[in-house]
């Protein structure tokens, strides 16, 4: 029996809060297993980490299997997914580095629940700090094993042997052995001594890591031969389409007395679930459209407001701003006070590839290909939906077309599987763009109240920050304050919502950094100087100073051209720090800002792949421009109303500013993920530039300056 579609206001399992990634300190809690398989062997290193940070201990284990085969290929088996963010490539680099082989000798098999271990979901910027670290450790173990093999083969002391170019060479005799030979030697593998603490390579000695490498399967992309989930074709495959309700929460009363699926189209109905299967997606969609015309629905009363702000205030759980005595006392003491409310609307992720799945049953075994961040989570969801044991379900995630935190769920997988079970043939279900806008979850909207006061020295005597609905990420600011309250209040949400790139850190940094500029102006101080004077985060201070220098902040403050404004913003997120400067102009007729130049300084520890890092930073910047300039989900009559690209404007080529990006490479610091943090400075930097140019405070996204009337 199919699980009914998620109710419209269901919250996603991975919501709001992902715990901050803490620095990893490796402890000797590791296990190594060797298993011979046909054609080679599997080296399984289970890497356990005990990490201390923020007053808590986190213990995680990451399994990092490596498969060695007799042709010399080494395959990393890993549960992360590739959605364009570069995980596949940095994993390959990490293994190649520690194994001492060229990257071309490493294959990476990802996200197949039958083959790869469960590595949580791909989110939280965790691949770089956790998974890559574990793969380095596992690969170093493989390297040590080769040395052990050479030593045993030549009956010598192995400590002076080194691995280079995939081989160990004995210096005097010039004999050498390779991973390929080791893979063939089952006798050795049976008796290999367990290796503890194989040393990982320090950055000073890196030959592969730390150097730019383009996506390892890039050729398949430019030739069009890579199969995304929406390209998967199986023998005898049919195509599906789902009948969607006209409004969230609408219940199907009937398909209409005379409705019949056309010739060649199968109707699949299971309580609320109605789908169509045909030999072409066109026929399936036409049938669903015809059903939508004929169907009779019980519609719920639609919410009255087109904006959620009042409802957030009414349903917020916890204490609103204004009641905290310490804050009120701090404000009373302040020389200047500012109170402001920020409104950040719902937005959509808009991945280039709408979600899609192919489901195939073989007896009571189900296999699904789909695009999601969580193969094991979707496997669990499928097992529950169909009353199966998880061993009966296999989920395979091909490299897919973007997620951005929006594909943590497996709707298409479940829908495809239900259709496939009925017609007893594989079924491809590919969401339309409109479905992807309308039926997938949004980034949460945020209503943020800030009450802040400064003393006569321009220091913060009080800072109260209350976020309704969006979440906790990035709610703690980097500034000292006399009295401090930073709190997130859960509310009801009229729209389905969930994770997004940097989560609530986007809204929280927008509100905080925008208000900081208001305070700086009230204090009569330069925005950069005000931040530095109140900054308690030394790591953030460095990038703030770096961007100001690169952008020539102080010079531009004095010499800016007429009609231009500059703005600065900074933030700390997912254990990396970013600072952003922009130069803007504002169209006087529309108030729409135009970002002319953007300069960003970013530090995320030791850089693993400079090419990948650059792409993530650029991608964050461009994606961050969307909600600044135009993106806003609108809803009416119980439904998202602008679910098409011509109604929901994402950044276009003409919106791209001149970019100048500076990366601080800290060889001494652990590597952190870069897929999220660079987005958080975009909105507030633009807001601050518009404020500087126009004098009008910015309190909403999309950002608008004042319009000239007549």
């Amino acid at each position: 029996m199919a699980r009914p579609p998620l109710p419209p206001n269901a919250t996603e399992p991975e919501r709001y809060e992902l715990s901050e990634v803490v620095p990893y300190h490796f402890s000797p809690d590791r296990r190594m297993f060797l298993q011979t398989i046909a054609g080679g062997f599997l080296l399984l290193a289970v890497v356990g980490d005990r990490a201390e940070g923020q007053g808590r201990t986190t213990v995680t284990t990451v399994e990092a299997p490596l498969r060695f085969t007799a042709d010399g290929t080494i395959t990393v088996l890993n549960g992360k997914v590739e959605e364009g963010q570069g995980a596949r490539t940095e994993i390959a680099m990490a293994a190649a580095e520690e194994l001492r082989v060229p990257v071309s000798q490493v294959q990476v098999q990802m996200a197949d629940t039958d083959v790869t271990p469960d590595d949580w979901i791909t989110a939280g910027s965790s691949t770089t700090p956790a998974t890559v670290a574990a793969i380095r450790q596992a690969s170093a173990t493989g390297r040590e094993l080769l040395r052990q093999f050479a030593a045993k083969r030549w009956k010598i002391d192995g400590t002076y042997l080194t691995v280079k170019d995939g081989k160990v060479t004995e210096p005097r005799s010039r004999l050498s052995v390779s991973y390929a030979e080791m893979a063939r030697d089952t006798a050795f593998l049976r008796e290999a001594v367990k290796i503890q603490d194989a040393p990982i390579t320090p950055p000073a000695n890196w030959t592969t890591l730390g150097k730019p490498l383009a996506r390892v399967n890039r050729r398949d992309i430019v030739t069009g031969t890579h199969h995304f989930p929406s390209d998967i074709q199986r023998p005898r495959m049919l195509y599906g389409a789902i009948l969607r309700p006209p409004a969230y929460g609408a219940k199907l009363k009937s398909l209409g007395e005379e409705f019949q699926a056309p010739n060649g189209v199968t109707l699949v109905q299971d309580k609320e679930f109605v789908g169509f299967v045909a030999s072409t997606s066109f026929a399936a969609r036409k049938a669903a459209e015809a059903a939508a015309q004929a169907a009779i629905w019980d519609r719920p009363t639609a919410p009255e407001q087109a904006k959620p702000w009042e409802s957030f205030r009414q349903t917020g759980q916890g204490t609103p701003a204004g009641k905290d005595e310490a804050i009120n006392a701090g404000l009373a003491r302040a020389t200047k006070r500012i109170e402001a409310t920020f409104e950040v609307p719902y937005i959509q992720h808009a991945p280039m590839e709408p979600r899609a799945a192919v489901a195939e049953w073989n007896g009571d075994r189900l296999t699904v290909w789909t695009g999601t961040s969580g193969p094991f989570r979707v496997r669990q969801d499928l097992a529950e939906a169909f009353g199966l044991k998880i061993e009966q379900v296999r989920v395979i995630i091909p490299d897919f077309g973007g997620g951005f935190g929006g594909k943590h769920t497996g709707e298409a997988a479940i829908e495809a599987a239900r259709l496939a079970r009925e017609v007893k043939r594989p079924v491809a279900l590919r969401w339309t763009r409109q479905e992807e806008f309308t039926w997938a979850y949004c980034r949460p909207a945020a209503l943020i109240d800030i009450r802040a006061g400064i003393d006569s020295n321009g220091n913060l005597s009080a800072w109260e920050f209350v976020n309704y609905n969006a979440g906790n990420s990035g709610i703690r600011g980097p500034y000292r304050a006399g009295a401090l309250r930073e709190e997130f209040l859960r509310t009801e949400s009229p729209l389905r919502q969930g994770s997004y790139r940097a989560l609530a850190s986007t809204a929280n940094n927008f509100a905080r950094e925008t208000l900081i500029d208001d305070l700086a102006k009230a204090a009569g101080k330069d925005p950069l100087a005000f931040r530095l004077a109140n900054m308690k985060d030394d790591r953030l201070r460095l990038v703030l100073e770096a961007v100001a220098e690169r952008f020539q902040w102080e010079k531009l403050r004095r010499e800016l051209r007429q009609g231009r404004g500059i703005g600065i913003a900074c933030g700390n997120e997912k254990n990396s720090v970013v600072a952003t400067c922009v130069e803007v102009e504002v169209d006087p007729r529309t108030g729409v800002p135009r970002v002319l130049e953007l300069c960003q300084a970013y530090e995320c520890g030791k850089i693993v792949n400079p090419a990948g890092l650059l792409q993530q930073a650029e991608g964050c910047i461009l994606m961050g421009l969307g909600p600044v300039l135009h993106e806003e989900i609108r809803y009416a009559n119980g439904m998202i109303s602008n679910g098409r690209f011509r109604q929901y404007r994402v950044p276009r080529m003409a919106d791209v500013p001149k970019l100048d990006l500076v990366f601080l490479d800290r060889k001494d610091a652990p590597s952190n993920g870069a897929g999220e943090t660079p987005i958080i400075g975009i909105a507030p930097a633009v807001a601050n530039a518009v404020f500087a140019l126009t004098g009008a405070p910015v309190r909403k996204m999309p950002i608008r300056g004042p319009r000239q009337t007549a």
Partner: protein
Amino acid sequence: MLALKSGLDRRKGERLLMATLELTVNGKVHRVESDPNRPLLDVLREDLHLTGTKFGCGEGQCRACTVLLDGTPSLSCLTTAERAQGKQIQTIESLAKDDKLHPVQQAFLEENAMQCGYCIPGMIMQTVALLERNPSPSEEQIVNGQTETSAAVAVIPGYCRL
């Protein structure tokens, strides 16, 4: 070429039309039984198994579905299979010859102008068409509307590199 002139063989199924269409794709003539109103994109992907061309929006905004029709960049999500008859249809699959990539494909590799890569076949076809018409376009011409690429929606690849 069984075009409209010689009459299409139409059999009306219930609400679905069927016709025999002749489509010349990447230099090869295919006879396809299909509803003539189906998007060319669907016929390429589902009937001819040429999945390099992608569906991004179905409304002509994103360009992921770009193919060339007689050398002109066309949005295959908005072009019916019927209207594509009699034209030379070129998809991403036509560019590489044996193992040798087209110079535009090679350029995309060298500039690392892709992330998830979903829009890239469409972007490549747009670029191929642009350079045929205008071998040395200015940045302004690329960005500001002498070309369809200006409207491209895929945010992420760092348009600057594209």
